[in-house]
Structures are given as structure tokens and as C-alpha cells.
């Protein structure tokens, strides 16, 4: 860890003034700072800010960015109306980590790519221009969708996958643009030529909350496939909300974890499903769309069929088709 100036922010303006690196739960940032993957000169502690509330209004839920993963998962409304989110949170990390991890921090946690973590190795994300050692290396846990020839990292969050399916919007306060509400599509940037850029946030920008629209109709599910039964990141995960009426799928929202540099959602998949009667053949068609552009890199080839199978099983579960 490099030495840093520690600043305890008392209001959002102070965060922008300080212009340093924000720390919330610290469960990702400190991990990376110990390896000197992150070396902020100034650390701005935002944990004393008033961003700890979950506010409910008629057709939305506003989750303060400091709400911990535990509190969010256990919140009555979330458990009842947004169960996919509760499930995703509970499938992530551990009791201890969830007690510390915050909503804002979880969205911004960085990849678990092993070469990103080893500072002796080239990595375009950590050291832009140095190369991607994962491309032809050990990439079992890395991306098959949305990657570039510069980086095939995955975004490791479970929570964000559920939020993506729930059409969450991220509230950001920035010095230049004031308060903005961004869709997750707008918020996360695909790696392209600059894998070091992961979101549209600028230095000093503060995530203040996440907004969920009114609880969706239909059934919800979060399914996570992993190497051990608990305390492991997803190989593949699926967050799904599906509504059926009169034997037809009327609404479908599917987001995927473990597959891409950001929580993945493909409207093409949903278009295949909506308006149709659920069937194995239909699910196959949707799966074809999901993996149409998927590209394996050796060790992670298995994710392509695994994503298909998992998605189909989730759809079967939610529609009752076996």
C-alpha cells in the first residue's frame, strides 16, 4: 500500500473538492491497494455521509449508496418485491463481506482476472498498453461476451446483474454535471481499446444512490453456477424476471453475470421470448441469440454451453415448462 492522505468527507461537496479516491466499505479497494494495483494519493472516506437509507415511494425504491449488501438483501420490500436482487446479493461473497460492502462499491468492484491481480504480469487494464496476458493464458473465469482484443475481463458482481435485470438507474453527483440518473448501459463502458476505463465516472464523482423502478410483474429468479457451493464468484449467473399471461410470455428481463465486462443484457434475447408461448424450442432460440457473438478463449469455452443451459433452466423454472 502506498501512503495516502486520509480525508473524512462530511458532505458531498467535500468529496468533489478533495478529488481523491472514494472509499466506502473498502472490501475491494483495500484489497487492490495492498497489492499496489490501486495507488491513490488521497483517500476520501465517504462513510459518514447520509447515504444509508432505503427510501420507498409509490413506484420506486431509492437505495442509498452506503446501504450495505446485507441490509439491502434483508430489506423487507426487497425480499418481497425484488427477490431477484435479494437472492443475488445473498449469493455473493460472505456474511462478513456483505456487512461491509456497500451498494456503490459493489457496482464499482473490479475484475478478478488473475493477471490484473499480479503486478509482475502485463495487463492492459492495470497498465494500459502492456498487453493482455489472459487472452492466451488462464482465462477460465473470463469473458465470452462484450470483450475486446485488449481485454477479456469479467465484472464479478452478483448484485449488479440483478439490478441490470431490474432496470436500475444509478444516481451520480458530479462537480461538472450535477446530479444525473444513468441507466446501467450508460454507466458501464465496454473495454474496447481502453479497458482501464470501466464506467463514465470522473474523478470525484460520487454515486449517491441506485433507483429501482416499480416492482416488476411476474416471477423472479437468480441462479449462480460456481465452483464451490458458497464463497465463490460466478462462472455463469442469470437474473431473470418473466411474466406469463394466458400461456404467453408477456414480459422478460434477463441479465447475466460471469460472461462479460459488465452485467450483460441482450434485448434480442428478450424479443425472442416476448409474445410467445414458453417451450423448450423457444428457449433454445433465445439461447442462440444470447451466444450468437460469444467467443471463447480456450479455458473459458465451456461458458458458452453453460450459459445456454443455465438460462434455459431458469426459463423453465419461471414458466413451468420442463
Amino acid at each position: 500500500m502506498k501512503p495516502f492522505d486520509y480525508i473524512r468527507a462530511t458532505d458531498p461537496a467535500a468529496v468533489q473538492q478533495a478529488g481523491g479516491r472514494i472509499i466506502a466499505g473498502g472490501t475491494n479497494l483495500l484489497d487492490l491497494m495492498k497489492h499496489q494495483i490501486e495507488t491513490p494519493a488521497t483517500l476520501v472516506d465517504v462513510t459518514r455521509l447520509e447515504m444509508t437509507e432505503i427510501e420507498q415511494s409509490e413506484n420506486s425504491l431509492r437505495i442509498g449508496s452506503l446501504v450495505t449488501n446485507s441490509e439491502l438483501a434483508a430489506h423487507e420490500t426487497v425480499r418481497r418485491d425484488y427477490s431477484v436482487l435479494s437472492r443475488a446479493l445473498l449469493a455473493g461473497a460472505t456474511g462478513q463481506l456483505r456487512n461491509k460492502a456497500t451498494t456503490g462499491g459493489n457496482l464499482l468492484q473490479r475484475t478478478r482476472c488473475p493477471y490484473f491481480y499480479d503486478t509482475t504480469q502485463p495487463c492492459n487494464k492495470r497498465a494500459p498498453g502492456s498487453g493482455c496476458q489472459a487472452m492466451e493464458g488462464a482465462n477460465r473465469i473470463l469473458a465470452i461476451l462484450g470483450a475486446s482484443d485488449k481485454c477479456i475481463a469479467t465484472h464479478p458482481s452478483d448484485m449488479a446483474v440483478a439490478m441490470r435485470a431490474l432496470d436500475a438507474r444509478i444516481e451520480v453527483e458530479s462537480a461538472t454535471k450535477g446530479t444525473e440518473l444513468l441507466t446501467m448501459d450508460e454507466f458501464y463502458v465496454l473495454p474496447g481499446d481502453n479497458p482501464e476505463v470501466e464506467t463514465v465516472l470522473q474523478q470525484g464523482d460520487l454515486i449517491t444512490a441506485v433507483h429501482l423502478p416499480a416492482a416488476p410483474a411476474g416471477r423472479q429468479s437468480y441462479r449462480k453456477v460456481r465452483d464451490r457451493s458458497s464463497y465463490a464468484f460466478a462462472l455463469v449467473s442469470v437474473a431473470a424476471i418473466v411474466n406469463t399471461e394466458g400461456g404467453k410470455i408477456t414480459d422478460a428481463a434477463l441479465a447475466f453475470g460471469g460472461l462479460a465486462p459488465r452485467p450483460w443484457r441482450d434485448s434480442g434475447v428478450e424479443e425472442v421470448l416476448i409474445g410467445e408461448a414458453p417451450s423448450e424450442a423457444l428457449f433454445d432460440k433465445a439461447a442462440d441469440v444470447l451466444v450468437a457473438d460469444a467467443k471463447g478463449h480456450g479455458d473459458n469455452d465451456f461458458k458458452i454451453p453453460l450459459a445456454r443451459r443455465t438460462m434455459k433452466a431458469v426459463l423453465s423454472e419461471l414458466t413451468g415448462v420442463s
Partner: protein
Amino acid sequence: MKVTLNVNGEGRELDIDPRTTLLDALRNHLDLTGSKKGCDHGQCGACTVLVNDRRINACLALAVMHEDDEITTIEGLGQPGALSPLQRAFVQHDGYQCGYCTPGQIVSAKGMMSEFDLGWPSNVSDDLTAIPDFSRTEIRERMSGNLCRCSAYPGICAAIEDAAPEEGLKNTKAAE
């Protein structure tokens, strides 16, 4: 940097490098070596302490960020001669072997019980909205953030089940 930490009910003043984690502050500066360092990166649970009654990994916390918090470590739960029910049960059920993960397991179990008290669900709860069952499977999932390479898990679970009533576990189906 000067900080005051409230550990096991006692205010302790320290002058530390801001880089010092809560775990290193306890172990290297306050001589409270009961909290263990197994990985230093949130991957094992050996460093589990309670902060305001919630269990966290002390290795992924900066000491300076916990000035106003109440910190409880294994030393605060009980000492030889005056062990807590959980500590006694771990001895009774051989809920350890080498003992290195043990303080973390016990503090984590304590924290887990207060999560049960609040009715928090877990990833293995069938019904998210129901009061969770104090079942083996629930305990196993909730204790999965504490690795034990000696693999004392069966003894750990037995100890937790045994000590729960004496530790005052409330609000579970078992207690209904």
C-alpha cells in the same frame, strides 16, 4: 495519525500510519492477537471481528475509519476461566484442531446469531420473506465465510447449535 479505537468496551488511543488495517492495529499495536490473519484479503474469515455488533473482516478495514465504532474481538467474548457459551461449546465439540481459524469462527458465529435475531435470510433460505430456520444448512451457508483447513466444520456446526440457546438466540423458528 492519532485515533481512538473503542475495543471490547475500552477506549484505546493510538498513533498509527493511516495504512494500518483494523486487524493490524489490533494485532500489532494493541496486543490483541486473538483475531488472526489468514489471508489479509477477505478470503478466509480468520480476522472476523464485530463492529457495532455486525461481523466484518478486519483485514479489509482501515483502523482510522472505525473511530466511533464499538469493536468486539474474541478477547472480549471470554477468557480462560470465564469462557462464553460458544467458546465452551467449541471446546466440548472439538470445533477446531489447530485453533487458528477458531477465534474468527466464534466471533462470526456470534455475529451470525444476531443476524438470525434480525430475521435476515440467506442464500439457502427457501422463502425469503419467512423467519429463517436455525437449521444445519442455514448455519453452514452463513458460516461459509470462515474457512477451516483442519476441516472442523462438523464440530463447528455442532458447537453453534449447542450454544445457541445459552447465547440467547432469538427470533428463529427453532426458538418459536
